[in-house]
């Protein structure tokens, strides 16, 4: 079955000038903002977004509208919006596309959200490795300010909202919402203890809403077209579209926007299928932290619920395709190098456990492990995976899932390394 893209967020990105405000305006841009400011009360905006059930595109899939509802009702402090553009999950590059190619879409989403939650200031946190995205957003902010969509007295409604780009400096853990808040405050990007949740006590100890770039970019569509239209897209579980970032061993890696619920197999086919006519070995469906899927497991609908039932996560929709030449031990070593390097070092299990697992898998990869090491590897991951109990943030869990799924699903390959004392694939 062949499928087609449904480009809402990536609308018109093939055009050279897709980032320009005029292009955006020509496509009906900032109409939703105008509608929200002039025709709707903030609470109505919140209600509309809640009705659309936009599930968080950062990976956790929490509904944005519900999150906004957590803001304290009696509140004297300023409210902040922080847009999470610290897209560091390996295999994911959807937010970069939006920020670089359609910055105004994000700005409009941020502005509407700020209006809805009563924030006067919003920070868009862009990771340091995305200088182009930073530049595009800075430029877009300037343009929007010039046109009166941003700053004081927007469109003459008396509402004033400021948006700033805040740069990161290289830390995966800042993609965690509280880690990002720490980073914006000028601290080490350590995730914070929850509770208190950011909606109650976030940036600068004030109520704060944190949303992903893609999530916020969906807001203009919902406001402009109405929640009903949005709900028509995708599935009951996950309405709307999602940008699938297909990378790895496919003929045409890239970002493709489909309605949620699309079959994972079709997505890979759409990206040209496994390259060089090779056989598929494994698919990682939701960024590096997701559980790996075997070729016979990829006939699955892509929404949060279906993938969870398939034993993995939708996550950030970073689909990585691995062909038959890949050594899974080496791949796991690569993943653990990433996670141990990116652990902030706060919580003991994550700080020590990820690095221990890395050392063990490195030894297995080098052919110096024992069969007991393979079981130990699984157990280490099991021990530091706490589902919130063992660590403050989910990085440890993210680092545990690949270990557990690789070791379980490719156990033979691990044992081969041990028995042969080298990589059976000759890597």
């Amino acid at each position, binding site marked *: 079955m062949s499928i087609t893209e449904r480009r809402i967020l990536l609308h018109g990105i093939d055009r050279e000038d897709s980032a320009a405000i005029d292009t955006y305006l020509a496509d009906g841009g900032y109409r939703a903002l105008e509608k929200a400011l002039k025709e709707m009360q903030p609470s109505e905006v919140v209600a509309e977004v809640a009705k659309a059930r936009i599930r968080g595109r950062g990976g956790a899939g929490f509904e944005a509208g519900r999150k906004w509802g957590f803001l304290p009702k009696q509140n004297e402090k*300023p409210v902040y919006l922080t847009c999470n553009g610290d897209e560091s999950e390996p*295999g994911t590059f959807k937010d970069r596309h939006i920020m670089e190619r359609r910055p105004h879409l994000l700005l409009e989403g941020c502005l509407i959200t700020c209006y809805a939650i009563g924030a006067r200031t919003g920070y868009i946190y862009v990771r340091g*490795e*995305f200088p182009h995205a930073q530049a595009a957003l800075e430029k877009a902010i300037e343009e929007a300010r010039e046109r009166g969509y941003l700053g004081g007295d927007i469109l003459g409604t008396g509402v004033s909202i400021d948006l700033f780009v805040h740069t990161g*400096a*290289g830390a995966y853990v800042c993609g965690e919402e509280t880690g990002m808040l720490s980073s914006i405050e*000028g601290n080490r990007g350590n995730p914070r203890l929850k509770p208190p949740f950011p909606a109650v006590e976030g940036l600068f100890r004030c109520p704060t809403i944190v949303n992903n770039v893609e999530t916020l970019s969906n807001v203009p569509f919902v406001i402009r077209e109405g929640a009903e239209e949005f709900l028509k897209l995708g599935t009951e579980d996950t309405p709307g579209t999602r940008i699938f970032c297909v990378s*790895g061993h496919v003929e045409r890696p890239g970002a493709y926007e489909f309605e949620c619920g699309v079959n994972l197999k079709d997505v890979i086919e759409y990206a040209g299928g496994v390259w060089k006519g090779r056989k598929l070995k494994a698919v990682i469906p939701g960024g590096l932290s997701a559980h790996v899927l075997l070729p016979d497991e990829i006939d699955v609908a892509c929404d949060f619920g279906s993938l969870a039932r398939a034993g993995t996560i939708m996550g950030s929709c970073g689909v990585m395709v691995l062909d038959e030449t890949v050594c899974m031990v080496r791949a796991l070593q690569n993943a653990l190098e*990433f996670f141990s390097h990116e652990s*902030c070092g706060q919580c003991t299990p994550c700080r020590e456990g990820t690095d221990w697992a890395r050392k063990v898998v490195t030894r297995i990869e080098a052919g110096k492990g024992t069969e007991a090491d393979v079981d130990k590897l699984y157990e280490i991951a099991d021990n530091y995976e706490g589902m919130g109990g063992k660590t403050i943030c989910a990085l440890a869990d993210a680092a545990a899932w690949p270990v557990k799924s690789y070791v379980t699903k490719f156990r033979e390959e691990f044992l081969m390394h041990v028995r042969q004392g080298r990589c059976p694939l000759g890597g």
Partner: protein
Amino acid sequence: METKMGEANGAFPPEHLRERFDAIVARYPRRTAALIPILMAIQEEYRHIPREHIEGLAEYLGCTPAHVLGVITFYTMLSQRKRGRHHLYVCKTLSCHLRGAGEVLRALEEKLGIRADRGEVTPDGEFSLETAECLGLCEQAPCILADGIRFGDVTPETVGRIIDELKSRGA
């Protein structure tokens, strides 16, 4: 030769950056929030965070030098060791790894004669090399980010061209 302007001399903020820093500080309700953007700006200016500026920066933002040090060492893009005029981030995470990042890195190391894991700089101070964890350019894997320029679909054969291009830009 580099101008004296680019050298850290201890006074903070350096005159030519004061305006820029003040603007950054103005975005936030607390001065310390500007720390990371300012550090990134210093990094860009001096190709590292000069030790002499830590005290001044702390005073400028109203925090302590220890805090600044903690932040500098946390973020990988901030370096206390001076980098080359052209700094290459070579992505090594899974997507790029699958498509041959290892070979690219090796080719680069050979070409430049420096090692990435040791943070070495070419003797002429032109190039330095660093592996990066996912640059978010997975569709163009393997990829390199250098001087704010992205190079996608790199192969061991094309690294020479990249170096040439960087050289020509620097001139």
